[in-house]
Each structure stands twice: as C-alpha cells, then as structure tokens.
C-alpha cells in the first residue's frame, strides 16, 4: 500500500516536472518567434515620415509608431476622424476613432502650434479603404506636448521700412502734382 502511494507520488512529480518543461519549452518557442517575427509586423521606435514615404513597401501593413504636430482641421467622418500629423518633414493622414481625438485642443496653423502627438497604428502604403492613399490607421494616440497660441509681434524694422516707403511714396506724388501745376 505504502509502496503504491510512493509510486503514485513519484509519478505525479515526474508529470509535474514534464509539464514544467513543456511550459518552459513553449515560452522559449514563443520568445524565439516573437524575437524573430515581431520586427516584421511592428516597429516600436518612432519612424519619421520620410522613412515611411521612401520605404512604403517595407512598412506596408505593419504597426508603426509615428509622432508629430497635428495640423489643420480634425476632420470628423462619422465615428472616425482624419488627423494630419506633421513631423517636420511631411504630414501623414491618420485615420482614427473620433473619441480618441477628444484630447486634441490645438492644431497647427498661423496662429497656433498644434499638439504634438504619438500615434501607434497600422501603416498603409495604398489603403484599400481610402482610395489608395498612404495613411496610418491609428490604434492608440498619446499627447506628448500640448500646443499653444502663438503671440504675434510686429517687427519694428519692418514698421520703420513701411514708414520710410510711405514717405518716399508721398514725395513722388507731391512732386508729380507740383510738376502738373
């Protein structure tokens, strides 16, 4: 009886160890696959617009991280919206869930600097949903730094130049009138 229980305990120990080994092997295989294959599907580092535009085939259909300033209008289209995000070289269209754009308060224009955002999403070289456009279908968006209103200042040098030119213009007109008389 005792012997039987010892055998059972040994058996369960062996089973436990083999199960552990299987799990270990599974993780090894998983990590190996992840290590080898993930770079083909996603890029964790921020990628510039120039890199994306010049290597469209390489990044097509992959998850990319892209950051830049939101410019122009946030164009709502039903439950989704279009953002145009400029990284300093080019602007790329971002197709995004409208709710995710709620945090965007400033967009780039003459009078404001837009919010600087980081987008993670699928890069499309020729998006079938959007007429073959090059775009990114965003999955997440993170505001890195908020935008601001740009305070306009008049350049005193330009102001002086305008006054001098006005003087010259008046002088020409006066001389013309005098000559006519």
């Amino acid at each position, binding site marked *: 009886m005792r012997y039987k229980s010892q055998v059972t305990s040994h058996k369960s120990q062996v089973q436990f160890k083999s199960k552990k080994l299987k799990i270990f092997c599974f993780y090894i295989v998983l990590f190996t696959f992840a290590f080898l294959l993930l770079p083909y599907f996603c890029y964790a580092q921020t990628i510039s617009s120039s890199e994306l535009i010049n290597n469209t085939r390489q990044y097509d259909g992959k998850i990319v991280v892209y950051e830049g300033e939101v410019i122009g209008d946030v164009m709502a289209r039903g439950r989704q919206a279009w953002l145009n995000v400029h990284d300093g070289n080019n602007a790329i269209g971002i197709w995004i869930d409208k709710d995710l754009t709620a945090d965007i308060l400033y967009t*780039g224009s003459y009078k404001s600097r837009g919010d600087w955002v980081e987008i993670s999403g699928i890069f499309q070289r020729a998006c079938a949903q959007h007429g073959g*456009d090059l775009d990114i279908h965003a999955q997440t968006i993170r505001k890195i730094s908020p935008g601001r209103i740009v305070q306009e*200042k008049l350049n005193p040098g*330009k102001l002086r130049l305008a006054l001098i030119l006005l003087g010259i213009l008046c002088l020409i007109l006066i001389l013309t009138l005098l000559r006519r008389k």
Partner: protein
Amino acid sequence: MILRPHLEDIKNIGYYLGKVIIGLSLAMFLPVILGLALKEKGPSLDFLISLQISVIFGLLLTKLCFTEKDLNWMQGMIVVSLAWLAAMFLGAIPLYLSGHWKSYLDACFDAMSGFSTTGLVLAQDLDHLSFAHNFWRHLIMFMGGQGIVIIALSFFVKGFSGAFTMYVGEARDEKIMPNVISTARFIWLVSIVYLILGTLALGAVGILNGMRPLNAFFHGICVFMAAFDTGGFTPQSQNILYYHSLAYEAVTAVIMILGAINFKLHYHIWMGNRREIIRNIETAALFITIMITFFITAVGLQQLGIYPGAMLLFRKGFYQLISGHTGTGYQTLYPAQFVTDWGNLPMVGVILAMALGGAVCSTTGAIKMLRVGIIFKALIQDIKRIILPERAMVVQKFHHIKTLFLEDKVARSALLITLAYLVLYGLGAIVGMLFGNSFLYSLFESTSAAANVGLSCGITNAAMPAALKVTYIIQMWAGRLEFMSVFTLLGFLVAAIKGK
C-alpha cells in the same frame, strides 16, 4: 544689319511696364485687407511694404519714361516678357518677408511658379503660413492664369491699339470678342462666375468633410483659383492628400478640366452651341490623348500591382494623369511615391500627358491640343499626298469653332512651337542630369516646370542647387509665354549690344 534700339523704344517699354506694375501692385491690397480682417498684423505689414515698393517702382517708370506714343509689335512683346519678370521679383517680396522661404531666390521661384500657374513649391512650413500669404500665393495663380497684362488691359488701361500685341505676347492668339479689351473682360466674367460656383462647391464639400466653415471656404476659394487656372498650389503641404476625400478629388478634377478648355469654347457653350464640344478639334484631341496616356499609365500601374483593385488604380492613376494633362499639378501622392511606387512606365504616361497640355486660349501650358490636332491632320495630309495620284488635290480641314482649311503656314507654326517646347523639356532634363539626377526623373521635373504643371517626383526642394532653381524659373517663364515674347526680348538685348 541689326539696328540698335532707340531711346524712344526704351521709354515706351518703360512707360507701359510701369502701368502694368501699378496694376499688379494694386492687387496686393486684397491680402492687406484679408490680413487686417483676420487680425494678421505681421502679414498685412509685409504686403503693405511690398505694395509700396511696387507702386514706387511703377510710378517711377511711368514718370521717367512718360510717353503718349502707342506700342509697336516688338515693344509690346518686350513689355509682356519684362512684366512677368517684374511680377516675379515684386510678387516674391511679401513671400520672402514672411520668413517661410529660405532665400529670396526661393521666394522668386514660388512667385514665378504661381504667376506661370506651375505649382512647384519651395515654401517651408507651409502649414503655418498666414491666411494673407496663402491667399496671395493662390491669387497670383489666378492673375497669372488670366494673364497679368490682361488684368492691366481690362481694369487699368482705357484702350490702345498695342493691346493686341500684349495679348498675343501672353500666349493668347484668339480673340473671343471683336476687340481685345472685351475679350479680356469676357475671360474675367467666365472666371468670376466659375470662381463663385467653384468656391461654393468646394466650401460645401469641405464642411461635409469635417472642416471648420472658415477654413472650408478659405480652402475652397484658394483651391478653386489654383485648379481653374491649372496652377496646383494648395494651402496645406500635403496638397490634395490633405482632404482625404473622393468628393474633393472629383470637384477639383471637374474644375481642372474646365480650366483646360479654350475660353472661346466656353463662350460658345454659354451661347448655347453645345455641339461645338464634340466637333472641336481640341476637345477631340484632348479626349484621345487622355485615353492614350491613361492607358500607358494604367498598364504600368497594373504591371507593378501596387493598387489592390481596379477602382483604386483608376482613382489614383486618373487623378494624377488628368492633373498632369490639364497642367494643374494637384497630387494625391507624395512626390517620392512617383519614384518608389509608380516606377518608369506610369511616369512616362504622366510625362507625355504633361508635355501635351490642354487647350489654347485656356490657362494651361505645354504644347496644347490645337497644335497636336493640327500636326496630326498635317501628317494625314502628307500621307494622303504620298498615296494619292500626283495630280490629286489634297485638302485637309479641321474644325475649331468654324471649319478651317489646313494651310502649310498653320502647320509650320504649330510644329515650330512644338519643337521649341520639346527643346525646352530636353534642356531642362539635361541640366537636371548635370546635377546627378537620373534621366527619367530629370525629364519628369523639367517637363513639369516647362509645361507649367507642378507635379514633382521630389527633385524640386529648397535644398536643390541654385542653378537648377534658376533653370526651372526660366523654363516656367518661357513655357508660360510660349517663347515669342521671350525670343523678342533676347533679340532686343542682342540688338542693344551688337546693333548699329
């Protein structure tokens, strides 16, 4: 023997050049007003300075060169060619003052690109440009499309017999109305009617696309001016890709085609003569060349398999093609994508389309459809002459508003201008290659500049060599004026140096 020009010639040229410059400078009031209305003080000041410089320059010319004599043929041609250069130098001042152009040469490049309705851009950080400056960029396209001198003719000059010379000098050799002034006014009437309709259509599409109303209508008026005048500027750096909208692409495509049609044809359509659309040699040639060049482009894109589905291929391929053929230059691609995605054959299709252009007496550049049609008819005539018996009378006709007999001098003139354009495309391509670009890309960019299109495969940027910028400026200028007034100016300069 070459005769040296007289002081009287120079005075005449200076006086009328001054008049045109004053007319042009008054147009700067519009961005000043817009800037003040939208509380853009800095940009308003930029335009005020530019306005004053231009008025002073124009006044000095009219006072120093005052004359009551009328212009002769040569003087009229020279006034036109110089007026376009003066417009570039003066129109570039507010752009340069904005700080969005790296150098005055870059600002001149964009000003010439605007006036000549080309659409190549060297501006920096376009997305933060003021409304006033952006409006000016598009306004100069609108003025350039109608013809700078035509503006002076229709608004600031009461009328003189030399008007026709200047009208021809701006590459318009067809009178719609009995005289040039009424023709110029009719061109303005057509343009203003379409401006209102086009702005409303684009503004409405913009609002439906989610744009703010002010932006939607501002973009609407700007995009209309650039599309109808086959220019190609847009208020944002992404060009038409900014809007992500099929409706926007469709409306702009219609406007581009309207801009590429002869104003004389517009007149006949307005007068109820709709059959003229089908019978006219230009519309027939335009339809056939669009089909041929699109076939080449589509086959190339199909071979590469870059677009998943025929509809996507059509939407992308046809838009770039029609934009190139009409000489507009609107893009729904990034310039680099022509190189990385499109490859050689589709680019060849677009180059051919750009090189051919739209109708004469329209706002497009390039060889133009009337000449293409005439050359084709002349070719048919020559083949008939070979095939038919020697004693047979070979008569070739073509329909352009009315049915005309094809004369040898008409065919010769069409061939000469075509040859001049081909040489201009080729020379620009050689200069592009001298700076290390490949033949096809250089030819693409050169054709785009000389044919006043504005599509780019990436060569045009602020970092390109100054010599290449100057080359493209000359190409845009000569291409827009269709050579005659440029050749006259060169002849005048040679006569001034070598004449007795």
